[in-house]
């Protein structure tokens, strides 16, 4: 039997869904409504989270916001240094981003490099009125001057730990865990 890595739960399913609802409320409050708003999720789990946010906002405001799915692979800054190229997935943004309030969604904010790539990618689609970043978990260790506008939970971590976000659509159940590095 392969050794199961040790996962410490930091967010359970009920608080997961409460967090998504809270972020939805914060987005509406900060922008005084949802006019000209669009939600773009970063594949894979940011995209699922973005879908959840869109339906949470729909429950509150009765408006279904345009949802975009973004694959940032082509904007990564490590393409030339990897052994095997990451799989490129499809970007699906079928609305105009120009003059929209874009809510960019990802599951974990870590070094900030993914968010940087996503910002570049979105700006290649047009000139949004503004871009706001919503993340479920902020684990620190930023390598770039990037911060989130909406944070589900701040979790202080050491650099060698991993934050594992599980979501029902992908993994069967919601939850956030910290994986300790295995000691050799």
């Amino acid at each position, binding site marked *: 039997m392969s050794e199961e890595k040790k996962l410490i739960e930091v967010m359970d399913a009920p608080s997961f869904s409460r967090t998504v609802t809270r972020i939805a409320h914060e987005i509406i409050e900060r922008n005084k409504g949802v006019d000209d708003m669009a939600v773009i999720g970063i594949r894979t789990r940011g995209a699922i989270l973005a879908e959840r946010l869109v339906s949470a906002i729909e429950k509150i405001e009765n408006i279904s916001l345009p949802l975009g799915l973004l*694959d940032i692979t*082509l*904007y*990564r800054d490590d*393409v*030339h*240094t*990897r*052994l*095997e*190229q990451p*799989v*490129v*997935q*499809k*970007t*699906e943004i079928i609305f105009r981003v120009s003059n929209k309030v874009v809510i960019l969604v990802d599951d974990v904010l870590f070094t900030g490099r993914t968010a940087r790539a996503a910002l*570049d*990618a979105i700006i*290649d*689609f*047009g000139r949004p009125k503004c871009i706001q970043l919503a993340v479920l978990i902020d684990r620190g260790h930023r390598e770039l001057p990037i911060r989130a506008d909406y944070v589900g939970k701040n979790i202080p971590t050491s650099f060698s730990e991993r934050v594992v976000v599980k979501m029902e659509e992908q993994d069967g159940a919601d939850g956030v865990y910290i994986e300790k590095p295995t000691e050799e």
Partner: protein
Amino acid sequence: MGIRGGHLLDLESLTAEEIISILDAARSFREVIDRDIKKVPTLRGITVVNLFYEPSTRTRISFELAEKRLSADSLSFSSVTSSVQKGESLKDTIQNIEAMRTDMVVLRHSSPGAANFLTRCCDSKVINAGDGAHEHPTQGLLDIFTMRERYGRVKDLRVLIVGDIKHSRVARSNIWGLKKLGAQVAICGPSTLLPYEIEKTGVEVFSNLDKALEGVDVVNILRIQRERQDAGYFPTLREYTLLYGIDATRLKRLNPGFTIMHPGPMNRGVEITVDVAESSDSVILEQVTNGVAVRMAVLYLLMAKEPIADKEGVLTP
């Protein structure tokens, strides 16, 4: 999954998984070229040389566009306007260009194996853009990609390739790629233009076009090169057209929902009639659009860093 070996020389040596990974990536790149801003920064700082020793419109422009869409710097070299005219060899040419710090070479050459030769005299990654009658892997990939997007599968598709199979690198790349993905491939042409022992690759061989067309899903029509007539491969162009030209009445033998393909350049009225070429079942221009996406996928996948084995044979970046 990427492409092993760091070069794309042929489809014969690729595995089905490698071909699928290129086709899957190409689907994502197809989305990029349909955007308003058709450019991503992925290959910034990479320099690609397009070495063309033979005339080409589609392949050359397609590669150049693919490179530009990925933000690579691209140079185009045409043997006609270069020191090749003064007698400089292929090896010297590439070594001099490479001395200016280039990273990748796209080669079109009239000698089979030229791309393979190039891998042994330079450090660049090499993409074969057609070497004699050997292979034209990116054309094969874009043909297969076009079929896959249209039918959602390649397995069990019935594909017929018509024309000068003997001199066609496009036919060879199509046959290898399609067979690996489980398609049923048949070829048809005058027996003088069919290669010796081609049936050993597992294709069905026809010399009667009407029989060959029965129940086929995709017809890929190859260009008939006029100079072959002078070499005595067939008596007249008119006779070729009567026996092997695709016209509207012949299409009735195909499966419903059939597709007409042609890698270009077309000889209208010879191997294909104008109404067939321009009909709604023809995807000839779609192939050209897809070509850019497929070449972007190949460039992207080849740029993965090559692993370097340490003393214990462990691969590290």
